[in-house]
């Protein structure tokens, strides 16, 4: 269990204010050695500020940060056992690739020959052998990022911080680099903390992610839990698509919750937490089924009229106006080439899903 290990980063009640703006609001969690941890959230949620506090570029207004057991208050960036890959990469344009990678070793007194050898080795790690003598302006964006990675990893930090590392790459390269980063993390065994606004990035790479909004950490969990068991409307909505219906709890019995939902009537869903009053009843689009006839009982059903069909090749997104007064999105896998079953706008359809796939969202 990760919880049994000693955390590499302890973030204790961190609050950061810029004037009257609260960038981080009482943030408190641990990151464990060897984790690939993501700070995920929309822009302005405080994730980058938190990362910069880990690196030492910002100081917390309140709270403490410990890295590898050492309190980091008053420790300047150049004395911290962490290294950062900047969003702009910040590869020094006036130095060769090799000098860039060796820089962090030279400034801390590593002998020139050793620094060179270790820099070459680090370049090998990111598949840039033979690029040592090039200048940064002769490299592509992806290559510059690898230089930035090598430059940080050569220092053998306890934690590698990555600020939106994939945002400047084109789509194809981004997918390749995701796998590459995960591979690299397995190879070097260093804790990675990555900041991203892209939920796909976080879900596909991270072991755990902290979802942040307006300076607060909303939920910390593994990708599967974040997607299937979001603890709030914000997380459910931010991670993936979701259809939400407003309901009122009318009874609790034996791990099942009875909820009155407009247009659907009384439905029963499994729920093991506390819930009362107004709740959100939610379902992911891919968990729903569409049918022309009313489906068998035991499912939650809802009637709707198709208003839009968005074709994406492998799947289609169907938009329906429902009796619940809410627009619902469902996804349909295009499993066959034939378009016989294709829906057209104006069709009346039944939407159905299993009570087990229903999310109950408080707040």
């Amino acid at each position, binding site marked *: 269990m990760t919880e049994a290990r000693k955390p590499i980063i302890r973030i204790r009640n961190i609050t950061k204010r810029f004037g009257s703006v609260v960038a981080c609001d009482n943030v408190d969690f641990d990151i464990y050695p060897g984790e690939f941890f993501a700070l995920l959230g929309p822009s302005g949620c405080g994730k980058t500020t938190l990362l910069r506090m880990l690196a030492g570029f910002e100081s917390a207004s309140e709270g403490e940060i410990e890295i590898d057991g050492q309190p980091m208050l008053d420790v300047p960036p150049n004395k911290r056992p962490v290294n950062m890959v900047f969003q702009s990469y910040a590869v*020094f344009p006036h130095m060769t690739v090799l000098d860039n990678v060796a820089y962090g070793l030279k400034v801390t007194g590593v002998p020139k020959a050793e620094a060179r050898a270790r820099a070459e080795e680090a370049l090998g790690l990111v598949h840039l052998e033979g690029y040592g003598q090039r200048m940064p302006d002769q490299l592509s964006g992806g290559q510059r990022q690898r230089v930035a990675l090598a*430059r*940080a990893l050569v220092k053998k930090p306890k934690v590698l911080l990555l600020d939106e590392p994939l945002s400047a790459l084109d789509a194809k390269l981004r997918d390749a680099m995701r796998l590459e980063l995960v591979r690299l993390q397995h190879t070097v065994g260093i804790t990675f903390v990555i900041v991203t606004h892209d939920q796909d990035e976080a879900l596909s790479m991270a072991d755990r992610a902290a979802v942040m909004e307006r300076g607060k950490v909303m939920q910390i969990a593994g990708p599967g839990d974040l997607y299937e068991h979001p603890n709030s409307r914000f997380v459910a909505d931010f991670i993936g698509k979701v259809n939400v219906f407003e309901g009122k709890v009318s009874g609790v019995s034996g791990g099942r919750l009875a909820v009155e939902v407009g247009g659907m009537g009384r439905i029963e869903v499994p729920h093991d937490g506390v819930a009362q009053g107004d709740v959100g009843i939610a379902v992911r689009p891919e968990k729903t089924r569409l049918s022309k006839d009313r489906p068998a009982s035991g499912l939650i059903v809802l009637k709707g009229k198709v208003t839009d069909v968005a074709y994406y090749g492998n799947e289609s997104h169907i938009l329906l106006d429902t009796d619940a007064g809410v627009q619902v999105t469902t996804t349909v896998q295009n499993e066959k080439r034939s378009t016989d079953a294709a829906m057209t706008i104006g069709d009346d359809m039944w939407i159905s899903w299993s009570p087990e796939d229903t999310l109950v969202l408080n707040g």
Partner: protein
Amino acid sequence: MEDWRKSKAAFAIFMAPATFWLLLFFTVPLAIIWVYSFGERGPQGQTELAVSLENYARAVEWIPLKILWKSLWIATISTVICLLLGFPLAMGVAFAPKRWKNPLLLIVILPFWTNLLIRTYAWIAILRISGFLNFGLEWAHGLLDAGFGVIGMPGLMGEFQPLELLYNNSAVIVGLVYVNLPFLVLPLYATLEKLDKSYLEASLDLGAGQWRTFFSVTVPLTMPGIASGVLLAFILSLGTFLTPDLLGGTDSMMIGNLIAQEFGPSRDWPFGSALSFVLMYVTFFVLWLRATVASRSSGVGEAG
């Protein structure tokens, strides 16, 4: 809208006033001076056109050469001091919080709002024997003297001797630093302002201290701004006339003063013209030096 540069007629119309102005008031006078520099001085001090290199021969004789050499020295020293004072100043403004930048920048350029002559006279008021600086020193001296009196050692400081701060080379250097500092700070500030601060953060992140970061990252990356500022301050110092004229002593004559003397009291325009061109050639040489260094350093980037 169509790019106006594509239309040659429009381009010509817009360019005409400036071209005409520069031709009439810059190129033509320069050509006249150039022609004069090969002329001869008549018996009454009038300029007679000729084709003679004598003025240039006189310009590289010992005394003018010594004055030129001295001008180069004073310009160099004042530029170095400008750089040492100007770099922290430019950094201070460039890295200041956003709302402070414009007020600070305003303070840097504020002296331009007053006439140079008045500003230079102000330095006389500060530096002269009975000036503000000596006044302040005398006051401090008196205070110390009284202090020593209290602890039973009266007269230890001796009589106050005012310092001779004015009418020497140091006064000229002080004046030049004062006048040219904004010219060095402004281009440097512009470069520092544009510098991506994440380079500096990356350097710190990689374990370099502040000084190491300054010399290994900040200075190389702002070299174009440093070069422009230094060049501007140097060329302005080299050709200066007013500052040594007002603040300098008898041995503080710079090349600008010599040229002024030839055009003025000596009434030897041909020699003055030749001196002007020698000064211009020196300036061109400095500019060429800068261009060569710049192309070499960017050449490294391309060749790799």
